[in-house]
């Protein structure tokens, strides 16, 4: 953060929470605790969105991720595992390889971001106007009308697919 020390403090706090809770999500033994830390992580990502002046996206994030997807995940956890007895290791034998791959990926990605010059000439936060949500809604109904409709069909298909998959077959 180069601009605004208060924004900087909020950014560092949010990113600390995101990274710590994200690490908890992938490393804790109890899968239910993982789901709760996932909620915290997604909430902090919504905070990052607000920091980037994407308020509508933050609201969508809280509604859909925190409200819907996490609840879905928690329901699936409670339907499939017997939480009280599950104390075995939740990770498989690939921990070393996975650690190596992910650390290598993170280092190379950060190095690439550092070395690339595509965004440097515009490394300046631009102001998003007050009517950004209006513009968003308008372009959703004009320019992006086709993806909008396709995504609604996708949601319908996913809903029907989930019902058909999870239905108990009668014989």
């Amino acid at each position, binding site marked *: *953060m180069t601009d605004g020390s208060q924004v900087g403090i909020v*950014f560092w706090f949010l990113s600390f929470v*995101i*990274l710590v809770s*994200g*690490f908890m*999500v*992938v490393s804790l033994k109890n*899968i239910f605790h*993982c789901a709760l830390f*996932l909620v915290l*992580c*997604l909430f902090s990502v919504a905070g*990052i*969105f607000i920091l*980037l*002046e*994407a308020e*509508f*996206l933050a609201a969508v*994030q809280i509604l*859909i*991720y925190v409200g*819907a*997807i996490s609840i*879905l*995940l928690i329901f*699936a956890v409670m339907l*499939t*595992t017997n939480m009280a007895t599950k104390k075995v290791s939740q*990770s*498989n034998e*690939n*921990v070393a*390889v*996975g*650690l190596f*791959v*992910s650390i290598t*990926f*993170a280092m190379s*990605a*950060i190095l690439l*971001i*550092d070395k690339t010059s595509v*965004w440097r000439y*515009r*490394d*300046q*936060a*631009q*102001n*998003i106007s007050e009517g*950004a949500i209006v*513009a*968003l809604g308008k*372009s*959703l109904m004009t320019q992006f009308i086709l993806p909008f409709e396709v*995504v609604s069909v996708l*949601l319908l298909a996913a809903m029907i697919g989930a019902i058909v998959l999870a239905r108990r077959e009668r014989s």
Partner: protein
Amino acid sequence: MFYYLALAAILFSIGLFGVLTRRNTIGILMSLELMFNAANINFVTFNKYIAAEALLGEMFAIFIIVVAAAEAAVGLAIVLLIYRNWNGIDTDNYNVMKW
């Protein structure tokens, strides 16, 4: 801007680690959500810093969230099905897709 991108990269790597090492299928799906969120942070950052007036990044992020919701619904239905048929959702329990 660098810090936002670095945050997204580290979050993506954490998700990658989770996908590679989790034994529980629901854990894998949770790590996938982390990776989706890293991508979303990138999109919103580029939207803010490069083309704030076009709002294309936010639009893309909205569609990503919708697709993630659909993915979670179908994925968890498949997880329930696996649990019912194989009595467990650990990834070393089922290997019917192997040849």
